[in-house]
């Protein structure tokens, strides 16, 4: 990887003081700049991330995942980064895949590379409901765009400059990953997946309960239908 200001890792974080330091340091080791988007955390996420060597943007209002990550893409656009990673601040994503993702992008001439939990079974445990939901979304995207994405909800992605510019302009706010994957597939951008092993959460709770899972499915399905109706206008 070239040393110049080229690659930015966008790390959305909300109350991640226990895990953020390790995430920042591990990503820095891969040669990327790290931008932590602190979404109004009530703990010391911001200070710890700064000390660890990250650039930190403290959002003045809580924006949620979509608005937060888009701030990162805007920053990447303004500061002329050629590549941007999205990686969670809770330590579930292992930064060791960054190099492989960059290589895959280069080799496959892809615009988006997704770190996928399901393309190959690497032992990621998930509940039956989650598997069912994931398969449904994946099949819906395949039906709408013809592109098979095994893990469309993965928050671990690498995108190139073209996509950075598009995301800086428009980015969905609630459940952005499946929506953007579909819209980019419809626009004809190349999406590739690489298998990755995801750590189970070390700290904090995952937000998914059966009711939120069903609500998630309904909202995502609706959002995907809307994306399909919007079509693939470039």
């Amino acid at each position, binding site marked *: 990887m070239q040393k110049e200001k080229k690659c930015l890792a966008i790390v959305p974080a909300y109350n991640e003081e226990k895990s953020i330091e390790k995430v920042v340091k591990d990503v820095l080791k891969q040669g990327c700049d790290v931008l932590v988007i602190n979404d109004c955390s009530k703990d010391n996420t911001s200070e710890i991330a700064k000390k660890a060597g990250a*650039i*930190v*943007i*403290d*959002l*003045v*209002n809580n*924006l949620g995942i979509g*608005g937060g990550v*888009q*701030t990162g893409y*805007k*920053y990447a656009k*303004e500061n002329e980064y050629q590549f941007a990673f999205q990686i969670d601040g809770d330590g579930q994503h292992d930064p060791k895949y960054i190099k492989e993702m960059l290589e895959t992008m280069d080799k496959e001439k892809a615009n988006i590379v997704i770190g996928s939990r399901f393309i190959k079974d690497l032992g990621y445990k998930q509940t039956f409901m989650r598997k069912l939901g994931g398969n449904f979304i994946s099949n819906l995207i395949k039906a709408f765009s013809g592109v098979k994405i095994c893990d469309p909800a993965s928050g671990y992605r690498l995108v190139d400059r073209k996509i950075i510019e598009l995301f800086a302009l428009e980015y969905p*706010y609630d459940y952005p990953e499946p929506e953007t994957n579909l819209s980019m597939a419809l626009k004809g951008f190349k999406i590739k997946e690489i298998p990755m092993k995801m750590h189970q959460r070390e700290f904090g709770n995952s937000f998914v309960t059966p009711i939120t899972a069903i609500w998630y499915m309904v909202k995502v399905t609706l959002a995907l239908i809307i994306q399909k109706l919007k079509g693939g206008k470039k």
Partner: protein
Amino acid sequence: MIYYIIIIVSIIFAFFVANLVINNKLLPKYSVLWIGYSIVLIIMSFSIKYIDIVAKILGVYYAPSVIFIFAILFFMFYTLHLSIVATKENYRTIKLTQELSILKERVKILENSIKKVGRKN
């Protein structure tokens, strides 16, 4: 009797809306529809005959229901309009939050570099 109540309520309502605008609690552009709405209600209440005719044409047996139908339709569209306004405002807030947060970070970097230069001198 109901028509008189509607007339009185509409007049009070129109004054209330006007008062909100005067006190800067409601933007004039949003007041126009509400005042218009009160005027329409008043006119409708004065023209009971016509309402009866419209009711007959529409096949409504109880004439005042015609007023209710129009009122419900009005509220439906106006609520939708307000949801659109809220969505627009939401986008604006998000954009402002993002731009402001990025700017704050930039200002901090600038301040720090100015301090460093100051120390060197």
